[in-house]
């Protein structure tokens, strides 16, 4: 079986143009290395050809990041980052500061603004958070940005999307689809995350969204911002026409902003009354160039 594999690689390599054949040489080296590792590590794992079994039940932070990186790469394939370094640095500063107030300050958090006039934001396992330029346009100050990022950070902290992936992976396991290792880890990850960044178009449970809203307000407050940043943004989004294409996906995958505000209002009650001195930092808020 393995001999056949190498033979196929050889056949392919010999038909490739020179430049690609070089890459193939590298790939071949990788395969040889991994196979060698596989032999050593599989001595106690009977019959397993893999170098290491991906722990889907409780992934390590590294494994979670590996999954997240794959999804984020696909998402960025749909819409690239806005070409504005100062903007990207700014959202990383605000985002990281807010993430520091959560239980997952250990993650290497990454934030980005993508080139899309849609109004949306995405949280991906492993600490990748992406918001659209269209949503950034709606923001008026740093506290509002902190509010939006907090909501997404909480999806990561509570593993909302990871849980969906775990569920689908376990279902696949049950169906016998991936009980045999079919190749490298990222091939398996690719199989589980599905096509492209479709996981980003999936709806979470309504309760998960309400939870992220509550936690979002909390993290914003903890970070020293005016805690109403997120509700203000929800109010602004709520004024967008229901039939507008820029909010089509957001409104399809989330409860309507009016319902979210209602729920937040209930949860907040008078709990924020004693918080004084929260900042909005309007002056520092980074203005889009176009």
């Amino acid at each position, binding site marked *: 079986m393995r001999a056949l594999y190498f033979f196929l690689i050889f056949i392919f390599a010999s038909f490739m143009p020179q430049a690609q054949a070089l890459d193939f040489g590298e790939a071949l080296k990788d395969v040889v290395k991994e196979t060698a590792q596989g032999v050593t590590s599989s001595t106690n794992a009977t019959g397993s050809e893999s170098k290491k079994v991906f722990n889907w039940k409780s992934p390590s932070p590294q494994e979670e990041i590996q999954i997240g990186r794959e999804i984020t*790469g696909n998402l960025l394939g749909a819409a690239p980052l806005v070409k504005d370094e100062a903007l990207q640095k700014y959202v990383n500063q605000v985002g990281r500061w807010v993430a520091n107030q959560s239980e997952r300050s250990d993650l290497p958090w990454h934030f980005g603004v993508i080139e899309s006039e849609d109004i949306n934001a995405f949280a991906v396992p492993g600490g990748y958070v992406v918001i659209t330029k269209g949503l950034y346009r709606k923001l008026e100050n740093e506290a509002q940005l902190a509010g939006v990022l907090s909501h997404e950070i909480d999806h990561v902290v509570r593993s909302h999307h990871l849980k969906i992936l775990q569920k689908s992976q376990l279902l696949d396991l049950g169906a016998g689809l991936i009980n045999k290792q079919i190749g490298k880890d990222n091939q398996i990850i690719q199989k589980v995350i599905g096509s492209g960044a479709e996981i980003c178009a999936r709806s979470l449970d309504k309760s998960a969204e309400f*939870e992220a809203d*509550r936690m979002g307000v909390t993290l914003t407050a903890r970070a020293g911002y005016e805690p109403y940043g997120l509700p203000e943004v929800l109010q602004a989004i709520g004024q967008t026409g229901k039939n507008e294409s820029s909010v089509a996906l957001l409104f399809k995958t989330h409860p309507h902003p009016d319902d979210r505000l209602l729920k937040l209002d209930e949860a907040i009650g008078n709990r924020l009354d004693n918080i004084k001195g929260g900042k909005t930092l309007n002056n520092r808020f980074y203005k889009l160039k176009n």
Partner: protein
Amino acid sequence: MKKHKILLLILTAILFLPLISPAAETGSALKADIIRKEPFSDAKKTGDITRGEQLQILGKKGAWLNIKTAKASGWVRLLSVKRGASSGSNQIKGVLDVASGRAGTGKVVATTGVRGLNEEELKNAKFNEVEVKKLESFTITSQQAQQFAKSGGLKTIKFNYLPEL
């Protein structure tokens, strides 16, 4: 001979009717708002609309309408305008505008340059290593974030997660 010319004009008009009808649409301002040079909230101001003011809708782009009032023209928020059903006479006026070359903004309606992010696009997205690396290059440490917070005068407070009710 002259009859034929008129007939030709009418036939041409009917042919173009569905295309140019937005150019002839009228509306009124639902609330006071700013007219801008471009369909962006940070574009330069070219005028104002006052509540109830009659206006002409020349085109649409995302959340913006290209409008014309008695005093100014430009882009206003879609939600600031109540779109009135165009009357027959308006449609004919639109046709005549096209015929006389006065309506030149019809193509704005067909603008599709703005990137969307629908399910299909997300599903068909292909991994982009260059962009992920770029994203990761902007990553900062916890300590750098603390520095950033300090420079803005942000002070952390103790606050429990809001409870589910």
